[in-house]
């Protein structure tokens, strides 16, 4: 197993979380195990940490358990017959493993679900008001202006029905709506899903700006590993329900394994054919 300096292969079984996890982190997942329907084991001892003010990318292929991780963090598992059966999740030093979703939102965590999930029959403005549900009316009206300032496009469309916006506009609305809860931690589940490359760039630009300007902590899930590692400070790579590799984003980008497997680049920087990748995948697992 070839790893460059600083990038450590996952130590999912190590006590007290993986090597990249510090107790001072804003969000800490410690050996989390998630089971759906009492039988389907999806997360098998996952540990990760998100430092305050950082952008952390969680990468991995389909079915690796990325979305499940975010659902476990935001408390949505019970609504999908899932359950955290082992390990713990803490936010700002407080154990939240079995807390109600609404209490988590009050404590400062916001999730932008995969596929945007805007309220289709509500107007843009009403979507944003719904996002501020946990907060009092006066505070949130000033936030509304802030969101409009950040996303001027939304301000122009405030009376439009959200279901008829384009994909990129819906993604902006979903992010704006999540911001209305005044989160300390913003979790994004595949913000690039179904968007044209230029729009993906725009969305990631917004994420970076939010982090720079307001110090918002971000945990982002992506299939688009290249884009995510460009904006992130730190990256985790998941496979079959646990972390198999982690490290600073800059180093992950240069890691030959990541390059070959997730960025689709060979050692020479050339694209590999599907057959080679498939062969490679069979030959080499980090497990």
């Amino acid at each position, binding site marked *: 197993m070839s790893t460059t300096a600083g990038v450590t292969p996952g130590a999912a079984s190590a006590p007290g979380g993986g090597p990249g996890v510090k107790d001072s982190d804003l969000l800490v997942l410690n050996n989390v195990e998630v089971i759906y329907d009492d039988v389907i084991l999806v997360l098998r001892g996952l540990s990760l940490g998100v430092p305050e003010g950082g952008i952390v990318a969680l990468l991995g292929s389909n079915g690796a358990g990325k979305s499940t991780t975010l659902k476990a963090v*935001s*408390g*949505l598992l019970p*609504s999908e017959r899932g359950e955290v059966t082992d390990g713990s999740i803490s936010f700002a030093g407080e154990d939240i493993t079995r807390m*109600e*979703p*609404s209490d*988590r*939102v*009050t404590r400062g965590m*916001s*999730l*932008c*679900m995969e596929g945007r*999930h*805007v*309220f*289709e*029959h*509500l107007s843009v403005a*009403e*979507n944003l*008001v*719904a*996002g*501020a*549900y*946990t907060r009092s*009316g006066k505070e949130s009206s000033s936030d509304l202006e802030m969101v409009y300032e950040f996303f001027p496009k939304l301000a122009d469309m405030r009376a439009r*029905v959200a*279901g*008829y916006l*384009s*994909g990129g506009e819906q993604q902006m609305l979903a992010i704006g*709506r*999540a911001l209305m*809860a005044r989160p300390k931690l913003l979790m994004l589940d595949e913000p690039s899903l179904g968007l044209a490359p230029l729009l993906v760039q725009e969305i990631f630009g917004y994420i970076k700006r939010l982090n720079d300007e307001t110090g918002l902590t971000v945990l982002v899930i992506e299939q688009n590993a290249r884009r995510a590692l460009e904006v992130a400070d730190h990256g985790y790579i998941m496979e079959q329900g646990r972390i198999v590799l982690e490290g600073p984003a800059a180093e992950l980008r240069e890691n030959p394994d990541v390059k070959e497997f997730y960025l689709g680049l060979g050692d020479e920087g050339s694209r590999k054919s599907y057959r080679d990748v498939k062969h490679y995948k069979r030959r080499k697992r980090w497990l």
Partner: protein
Amino acid sequence: MSTFLNLLVYGLADGAILALAALGFVLIYKATSVINFAQGEFLLVGAYMFYTAFVMMGLPLIAAVAVGVVVATILGVVVERFILRPMIGEDPISIIMVTIGLSMLLNALVQMFYGTSVKSQPAILPRGSVDFLGATVPLNRLLVILIAAVVLTAFTIFFRRSRHGIAMRAVADDQQAAMTMGISVRRIFALAWVLAAVSALIAGVLLADISAVDQNLAAFGLLVFPVVILGGLDSVPGTIVGGLTIGLLKQFVSGYLDPGLATVIPYVVLVLILLVKPYGIFGETRIERV
């Protein structure tokens, strides 16, 4: 002309009450996807609770209304918490059977405690009549229209402007996304049932005042179905249009054609609408972007 105006006022009054009753039905369907067959019994229970407070306990009008609202609130919460919540995730047919059972239960409870005889309740709305464009129309019907209009407007403003109203619509749209906003879906479900019970109480009291406090109130509640099918199961404005249409149709058919036909005509409309426009006039079409 005089007959026309009279039928118009009677029809609008019936329609306004129907709209109120249907509003509760639509709220429950929209927020929780439950088809509540007990909506008519909610009217019945509301009217009898008001009768208990106003006539049997001799409370002043305002206090009796307050008692009615409190009991309706408790009824809504209890029904949601102990009857519908355990049914979440069950087959829609099972849930429909449960609400049918609930309607029978409520009906039986009212019969058990109050008997089947007509209760006499002093008129709340003034009984006089007024001259209106040369016709003599009953004052209480006009007041029913006015009160229902005020209540329906208040509900509409609640859904458009208030935080909880918007949250209710958000839950109706996308429950999971609403949960990520910190909206408690259970609390919204309870709120939907409470609002349905309260709007049914108002409808029940108004209806009892222009007719009588008896078991027939629940039968009137059955007319909710043609109303919501016509207006669209999930449309609040649809309940108003549907309610007024059915109310007017009934009165005009009864006045100009035949009173017997008038009791059938709402259900004829129901069948026709199901054939032609199954989502109703204002029913939400699924938004699909291409």
